């Protein structure tokens, strides 16, 4: 750290030097170049300094302790917590003088060492789990160990707090720090959903990224664009694409000097994840995959060589995809095919890769059945499912969801896919699924939900309002008989369009859930989650 050594000079000289350096940094930031770790730290320091100057000057030791606490966050916890400790003060190009500034460079080395030590401690503790629960260093915050029934302090996800201006400001600051573009909402939002984002497909966030993208890896940019335009849709497809993109990132990654791969790579991934969630809110399966990757990365021992570590990580990702998605779907097909008998009329909704796979397998095993594909506006995903099934040679019928009560008397079973299974037994899936389950129940037709275990999540939800996704409202506009009634919906003050993406189905409508662990009732989801957590 030549810089800090060179700064053991007069405070006046030091401050002007700082000022110059700072301007350079801000310039670099505006140009989109990635800031080195030191530059980022310096920016942070300046911000803190301004905050300190605004209040009365505090003593240095207090400041050091505060800074230490502030820089303790474990790599597994997302970096969003840090802005809460850093001062929300805009960086001024002119550095203000302060006697405290002189002590800062000296502290930075010691402070970093302490930081690293603390982080190693907490990491070790979380690895060993319960054993070292209470013996962590006092300065670090208590870790929430998922194995115990301790109250987990959950952070509310940002994407359901759009109506809170404080949360929005926090998000904007975090994105600015990570140099990720912020996407703005579009159109009039129905009042019941003012806590959710509503984006337009015509304004993808990639428009604001400079080319070539140096901050965000190009495969992530491409992935984000594919998400926001709906080119990649469906829970499994999104997760697999995400994992492949991460593999590419790891391949291209090289550890900077004086850094540990296990810590730095996780920090590198955070802005990517923020960017992807700006393009489209993360699905439950993606969330679980990211948690897994971060855990694997932080478990890499520090003496492991870089090439070896990268190879190991890529193997982990491959095995995750193989086990949790591909082999799981094989297992689920095996169980599901037992439930399909000859002469069945099976109803499916939309396009679920898993259900399509099951039906194709059953057809190959010479089961005689026919399929009714139910579709709904505005996505009309059923057409894709229809195409795949017809290509296989299965006899299909196609209806819209409003014709459900007309077609249900002929149906013997309903197979549905899921986006996520919540801990209270509710099934979160494409909007319309709950309707199908409701009407099937009224006609006494059994409803079977097929879902891999990696989509199980610990959230609970009872209605489709609090946590959902709003798609582009312009999708609802359509021309019929030469007239487009909703063309100018934006000009009419009291007219709103609602394009929901997900809804939750209560467990009493679902008769059976088929997972790779077996066939379980809907209410056994928390049991599976517990078993999974104990295993890991």
């Amino acid at each position, binding site marked *: 750290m030549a810089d800090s050594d060179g700064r053991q000079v007069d405070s006046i000289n030091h401050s002007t030097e700082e000022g110059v350096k700072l301007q350079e940094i801000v310039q670099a930031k505006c140009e989109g170049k990635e800031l080195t770790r030191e530059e980022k730290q310096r920016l942070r320091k300046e911000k803190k300094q301004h905050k300190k100057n605004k209040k009365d000057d505090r003593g240095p030791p207090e400041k050091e302790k505060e800074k230490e606490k502030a820089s303790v966050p474990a790599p597994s916890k997302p970096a969003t917590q840090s802005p809460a400790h850093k001062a929300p003060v805009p960086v001024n190009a002119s550095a203000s003088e302060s006697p405290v500034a002189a002590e800062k460079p000296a502290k930075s080395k010691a402070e970093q060492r302490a930081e690293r030590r603390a982080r190693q401690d907490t990491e070790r503790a979380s690895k060993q789990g319960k054993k070292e629960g209470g013996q962590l260093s006092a300065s670090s915050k208590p870790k929430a160990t998922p194995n115990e029934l301790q109250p987990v302090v959950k952070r509310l996800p940002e994407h359901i707090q759009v109506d809170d201006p404080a949360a929005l400001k926090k998000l904007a600051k975090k994105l600015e720090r990570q140099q990720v573009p912020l996407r703005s909402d579009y159109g009039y939002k129905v009042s019941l959903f003012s806590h959710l984002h509503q984006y337009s497909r015509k304004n993808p966030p990639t428009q604001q990224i400079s080319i070539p993208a140096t901050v965000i890896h190009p495969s992530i940019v491409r992935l984000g664009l594919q998400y926001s335009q709906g080119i990649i849709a469906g829970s499994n497809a999104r997760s697999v694409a995400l994992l492949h993109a991460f593999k590419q990132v790891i391949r291209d990654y090289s550890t900077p000097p004086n850094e540990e791969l296990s810590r730095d790579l996780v920090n590198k991934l955070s802005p990517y994840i923020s960017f992807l969630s700006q393009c489209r809110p993360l699905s439950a399966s993606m969330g679980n995959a990211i948690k897994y990757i971060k855990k694997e990365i932080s478990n890499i021992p520090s003496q492991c060589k870089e090439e070896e570590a990268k190879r190991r990580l890529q193997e982990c990702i491959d095995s995750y995809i193989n086990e949790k998605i591909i082999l799981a779907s094989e297992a689920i097909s095996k169980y599901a095919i037992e439930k399909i008998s000859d002469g069945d009329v099976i109803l499916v909704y939309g396009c679920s890769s898993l259900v399509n796979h099951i039906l194709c397998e059953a057809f190959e095993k010479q089961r005689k059945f026919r399929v009714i594909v139910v579709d709904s*506006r505005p996505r009309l995903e059923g057409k894709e499912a229809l*195409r795949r099934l017809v290509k296989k040679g299965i006899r299909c019928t196609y209806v*819209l969801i409003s014709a459900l*009560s007309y077609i249900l008397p002929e149906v013997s079973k309903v197979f549905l896919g899921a986006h996520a299974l919540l801990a209270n037994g509710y099934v979160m899936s494409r909007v319309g699924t709950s309707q199908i389950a409701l009407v099937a129940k009224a006609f006494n037709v059994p409803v079977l939900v097929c879902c891999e275990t990696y989509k199980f999540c610990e959230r609970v939800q009872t209605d489709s309002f609090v946590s959902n996704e709003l798609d582009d409202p312009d999708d*609802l506009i359509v021309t019929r008989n030469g007239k487009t009634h909703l063309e100018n919906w934006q000009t009419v003050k009291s007219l709103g369009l609602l394009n929901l993406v997900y809804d939750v189905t209560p467990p009493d409508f679902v008769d059976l859930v088929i997972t790779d662990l077996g066939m379980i009732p809907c209410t056994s989801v928390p049991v599976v989650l517990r078993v999974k957590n104990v295993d890991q």
Partner: protein
Amino acid sequence: MPGADKETDLSERIESFLSELKRCGSGAGSLRGSAETARETTALLRRITAQARWSNAGDLMEIIRKEGRRMTAAQPSVTTVGNMVRRVLKIIREEYARSRGSTEEADQQESLHKLLTSGGSSEDNFRQHFAHLKANVIEAINELLTELEGTTDNISMQALEHIHSNEVIMTIGRSRTVEAFLKDAARKRKFHVMVAECAPFCQGHEMATSLSKEDIETTVIPDAAIFAVMSRVNKVIIGTQTVLANGGLRAVNGTHTLALAAKHHSTPLIVCAPMFKLSPQVSDTPVQSHLHDLVKLTSILSKVNAHCPVFDYVPPELITLFISNIGGNAPSYIYRLMSELYHPEDHEL
């Protein structure tokens, strides 16, 4: 001869009416509302009464029955035509009975004793000639026409009794009756309306734009989201194509799902239907419409069956209330109203 001219003129009118009925495809959200159809049918029947040659009530009834059969055959799904024919037949019977001087009350009181003993010989065969029968019948038909003209207004006048402020109301597709109902309530109260668009023809869009022009907070939702948003809805108000004798409905497709969702959340389901939609006879064949540009899968269309039903049957246990031009009724009372409107012998035209 003036008589022959009148007759040809009359048959021309009948023919043009029939061809319009045939053209009026039941699927594309009817080209004209059922109220208009009812009015035109009644006007045509009045013309037939005035211009056709008949000497006694029996003849007139035969003529009207014949024309009625032709009209219902032209477009079986438009049931208002048949309903109006039956109303006119009942009017003729009543006027005949009045002219004969028999007490109306005794006839109308279908006492159990009478129902058991009536062997079909209680009524004569309407062969007596009365001079003023024609005038009386035409006058009664005029009354019927004025009643028809006022149905929508009568229903809308009841709106404020059923909608309170800050409600969220859900509706489906496009119904002129419900539109007028909501607009009337909006003059005095503020509430939200969610319109399910009712694919594939999306009549809901037109409904939503027309409601929002009156400054009613409207939201358009796709059909798939009906159950998802139902938990926040206070009332469901729908229109219907036909009201059946058991209190059930024949309404636009998607209504059964809506009714089931409302039942699950214990949300009241209110049907705004004028009396001329009550129908004792409904054909069993499901009506299907053409799938226009809905399925753009020309490559595999040959291997796929596609269904697009136009109407849904909604059983009476899912319905809370009927609002008609004569007031509000429970579905269990509909059969009684039916017997007041139509004579049992006319149920089969």
